């Protein structure tokens, strides 16, 4: 099956082409069916290939397609690499991708752009697969920008709404800032190692000086910051919630935004060599995790809460990467893909039931009305909060154990971020499903559970969120950490914790107890005391206002970058270009014509004048020769 691995991206590409060219003429069933089947086909091949890889001694397969770019020493092949890391991401992308495709057939059923939606979604899967399957950095970059394009198209899916279009454009431009860093990083890799293929580069990585490696690692990380929404390039992700909810689940939670983690893990050799780069990753990660988690506390849009939660969780993963816990972060990518996709799809189901309402202040008491959604979301919330034996507990615990070993301060900060997560997630759950219904009568009348096409994916994801932890059971339980073993061939510095069992048990205990305490606190606040978020900003305390307004970072960027850029551009155009530069050009032009019209007056046509001038000229010449 590994030989056929090129079919994995091919299927969604074909789906994209069919839907793109003929989607409008096809029935919705056919259009959605083709999209789903194409991803399902990729999933099946991914599973079979995965099994084959597992039993095979050779863990790294390169599939040559064709020479893409060739410029003297720069040879870039369109090659795929099938190895433990890409095999795992393939499963996540096609597996969760398939579930979300199925869900979308229900969610988007009444949308006029039904086939267009699946066209974009298939294209996204194609590019996402390229991203993780490429055998060199430029193919990764192709996928990287390609998913950015699809993200742009899907955020602005309802293109009549200019606010959505603004969000889409913001996402694209912000990602491009990161992409420039990534691109320069790739070029530096080429200049340093003479190749950009993973194999060649990593083999030589130790030879180059550490400062160069640091530069490469940091440039690549700039790309990761953009794609994975880390400080300072995170503000596009919450806005990206303008897209349809399945998009938020697939692209802006489970897959695309984890591309940055994929990239760092793929490049772990660089980050193992350069401590500066690794430390930077850890610091940016924890800062983002905390910062986004606090914003999540006071958001009222159900999708925005989840969006900030995603930013925060991604931060946690980068923290893990920064301390060298590569496989733990990939583990968290996996479990996060399960429960965050679940939570988003659950939120979509809630929004569906509420007739488009996204404000948790207008929900409440839904648990009896939409039972499946409630139960699955409850499971997802427990999983993300880190309660054993749900999946999130194991992956988060693994990261935090490594962090503890690296630095106690970072561990404390990481714990705080986790506690904040548990709080805002249960706040979301309580406000949405408990208490009294706070929406309109009409909404209450229309409340209904979503169709099977939506609830079945929810149930599957809920099951995965519950049991996903088995992929990485703690080693000190004398279990095999399956993901860690799976990835070990490509991690340069394997970094198992050397913590004593007592310490690990203690850390676990603290984590579980603190999570439970936070949940109890949230329960007493929102259930027992029935606290509701205020409806007007005026009633907020100053610090709450600051947080609710997302620390005014958007406004800051607006005043610091966008407005000055516009000003400079206008100054360039109106003053420098039209006045100064063109002024000089026109000045030279009129000086020439001016002199011309002056000199023209000498051409009088009067022969006497010419003779006099000639004589004068001769006299002058003679005078000069005598003097000199």
């Amino acid at each position, binding site marked *: 099956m590994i030989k056929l691995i090129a079919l994995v991206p091919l299927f969604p590409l074909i789906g994209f082409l069919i839907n793109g060219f003929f989607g409008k003429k096809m029935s919705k069933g056919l259009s959605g069916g083709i999209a789903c089947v194409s991803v399902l086909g990729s999933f099946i091949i991914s599973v079979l290939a995965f099994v084959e890889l597992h039993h095979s001694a050779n863990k790294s397969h390169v599939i040559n397609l064709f020479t893409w770019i060739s*410029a*003297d020493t720069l040879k870039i092949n369109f090659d795929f690499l099938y190895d433990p890391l890409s095999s795992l991401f393939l499963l996540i992308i096609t597996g969760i991708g398939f579930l979300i495709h199925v869900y979308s057939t229900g969610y988007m059923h009444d949308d006029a752009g039904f086939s267009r939606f699946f066209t974009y979604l298939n294209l996204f899967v194609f590019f996402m697969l390229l991203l993780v399957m490429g055998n060199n950095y430029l193919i990764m970059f*192709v996928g990287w920008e*390609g998913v950015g394009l699809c993200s742009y198209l899907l955020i602005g899916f309802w293109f009549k709404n200019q606010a959505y279009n603004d969000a889409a454009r913001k996402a694209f431009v912000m990602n491009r800032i990161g992409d420039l860093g990534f691109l*320069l990083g790739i070029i530096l890799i080429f200049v340093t190692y003479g190749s950009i293929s993973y194999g060649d580069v990593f083999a030589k990585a130790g030879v180059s000086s550490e400062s160069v490696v640091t530069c490469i690692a940091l440039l690549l990380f700039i790309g990761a910051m953009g794609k994975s929404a880390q400080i300072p390039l995170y503000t596009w992700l919450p806005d990206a919630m303008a897209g349809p909810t399945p998009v938020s689940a697939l692209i802006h939670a489970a897959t695309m935004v984890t591309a940055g983690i994929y990239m760092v893990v793929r490049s772990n050799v660089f980050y193992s060599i350069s401590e500066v780069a690794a430390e930077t990753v850890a610091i940016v990660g924890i800062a983002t995790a905390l910062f986004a988690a606090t914003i999540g506390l006071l958001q009222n849009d159900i999708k925005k809460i989840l969006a900030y939660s995603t930013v925060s969780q991604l931060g946690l993963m980068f923290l893990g990467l920064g301390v060298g816990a590569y496989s733990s972060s990939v583990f968290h990518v996996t479990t996060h893909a399960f429960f965050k996709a679940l939570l988003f799809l659950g939120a979509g189901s809630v929004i569906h039931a509420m007739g488009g309402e996204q404000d948790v202040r207008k929900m409440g008491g839904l648990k009896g009305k939409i039972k499946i959604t409630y139960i699955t979301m409850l499971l997802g919330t427990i999983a993300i909060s880190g309660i054993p034996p749900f999946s999130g507990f194991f992956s988060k615990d693994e990261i935090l154990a490594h962090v503890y070993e690296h630095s106690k301060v970072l561990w404390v900060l990481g714990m705080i971020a986790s506690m904040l997560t548990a709080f805002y997630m249960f706040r979301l759950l309580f406000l949405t499903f408990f208490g009294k219904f706070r929406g309109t009568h009409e909404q209450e009348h229309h409340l209904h559970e979503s169709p099977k096409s939506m609830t079945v994916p929810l149930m599957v994801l809920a099951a995965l969120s519950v049991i996903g932890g088995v992929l990485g059971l703690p080693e000190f339980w004398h279990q095999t950490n399956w993901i860690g073993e799976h990835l070990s061939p490509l991690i340069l510095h394997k970094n198992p914790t050397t913590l004593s069992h007592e310490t690990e048990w203690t850390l676990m205990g603290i984590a579980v107890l603190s999570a439970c305490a936070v949940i109890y606190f949230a329960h007493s606040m929102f259930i027992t005391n029935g606290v509701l978020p205020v409806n007007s900003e005026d009633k907020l305390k100053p610090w709450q206002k600051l947080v609710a307004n997302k620390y005014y970072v958007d406004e800051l960027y607006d005043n610091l970058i966008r407005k000055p850029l516009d000003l400079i551009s206008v100054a360039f*155009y109106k003053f420098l270009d039209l006045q100064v530069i063109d002024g000089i050009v026109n000045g030279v032009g009129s000086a020439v014509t001016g002199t011309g019209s002056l000199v023209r007056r000498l051409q009088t046509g009067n022969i006497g004048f010419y003779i006099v001038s000639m004589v004068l000229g001769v006299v002058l010449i003679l005078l000069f020769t005598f003097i000199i």
Partner: protein
Amino acid sequence: MLTGLLIVIPLVASLLVFLLKGKAARSLALGAALAELAFSIGVYFHFINHPGDTHALSLNCSWIKSMGIHFAVGLDGIGLLLVLLTTFLVPLIILSAFRYDYDKPNAFYGLILLMQMALIGVFTANDGFLFYVFWELALIPIYFICLLWGGENRAKITFKFFVYTLFGSLFMLIGLIYLYNHTGFGSGIKSWAINDLYTAGRSLTVDQQSAVFWMIFLAFAIKMPVFPLHTWQPDTYVVAPTQGTMLLSGIMLKMGTFGVIKWLLPVVPLALEKWGGTAILLSSIGIVYASCIAIVQKDYKRLIAYSSIAHVGLISAGILSANQQGVQGAVIQMLSHGVNVVGLFLIADILFRHTGTRNIDSLGGIRNMNGQFSVLFLIILLGSVALPLTNGFIGEFLLINGVYQYSAGIAAFGGLSVILGAVYMLRSYQKIMLGEKPNNAMEFGSLASSDKIVLITICVVIIAFGVYPKPLNDLAEPAVKALLSNLK
């Protein structure tokens, strides 16, 4: 011989078209352009199948013996690519005029073909004097096209364009004569042959080379145009009829970049070492400067004009960095830019024809009225912002790579166009295509079939060469390598 025919076919066709009237002129022009395209593709296959066959590909006969001037034309990989760009674009440009009822169509289409002849001459000339003749010859048809069929204020703007470029060309002529006077060292026989000029140039001192460098570069820099010699360009692009703008931006500006590659780099290597950095810096400033200005443009045609300055700045910087990736990237990007910018100008034209305005603030909601047009527009736009798997990316990646090897700082600075390009392109696309239509009266019907053919052809090329640029690189790579080996 084949190369000579490439020049003769459009010339003969042009004369015939001048004699015809009305629709017959138009049809013949299109037919001739297509025949030329087919012939050039034949030449391409001959070139790749018989790489050493200079006999068939080149032509060299004495023209003015006493001055050592030859009618010498020939093809290398770079020249062939630009000839193919020309023969590919001219039929599309002619087709794009089908929606117009121009006055004196015989003159209009005749001039386009005459222009094609001169352009192919520039891309194939192997004699300095002949190069100069074709160079100036190309200016005449485009001058009349802009002057006779242009928009408001055309007389003044066209005159400025004409004088500005002529001004630069004269310096180039002085530079070339200077080189000519230094040929024949030893033998005493002076010659305009390109290799003799190369030898002559390299025998000069640094200061002499520097003088030649700036004189010749001035002409090329005005043509591209490079900052700060660009102010003729936006006005001219806006006022010219769409086909004129396409000829100017799609093909004619490549005369400048092509000139630097073939007629400057190998001639003055010492001057390049001394002054190349300055020229690269100017080019890079132009990238960011023009991108910024593009952000605040309201007229979509003017916006593209400025974006073109930005793109050309990167091409120029890549060439002057004088390494394989930079120069090869420049060649590839010249092709991509030519194709994409013609597409964008056609879009500006379509917008104007359908709505009566090109002001992006008065447009909107077209996405909803014509889905097909919006998709084609988007693909061309993506090519222009160099998204991977579009043709624009191949060139841009190689170019930034090439400039990086010269200076990482300049590459990062010029690379800002990656971001700024997305800003102005997406902002304008959003304003023009997305949202609700600005007033209920606005209509946007389906595309004319000639427009459709042109746009679809361009989109196919954008994706095909973005995914599989090998045929282009196969031509460019060895040619650039041979050229650069001259530099050492």
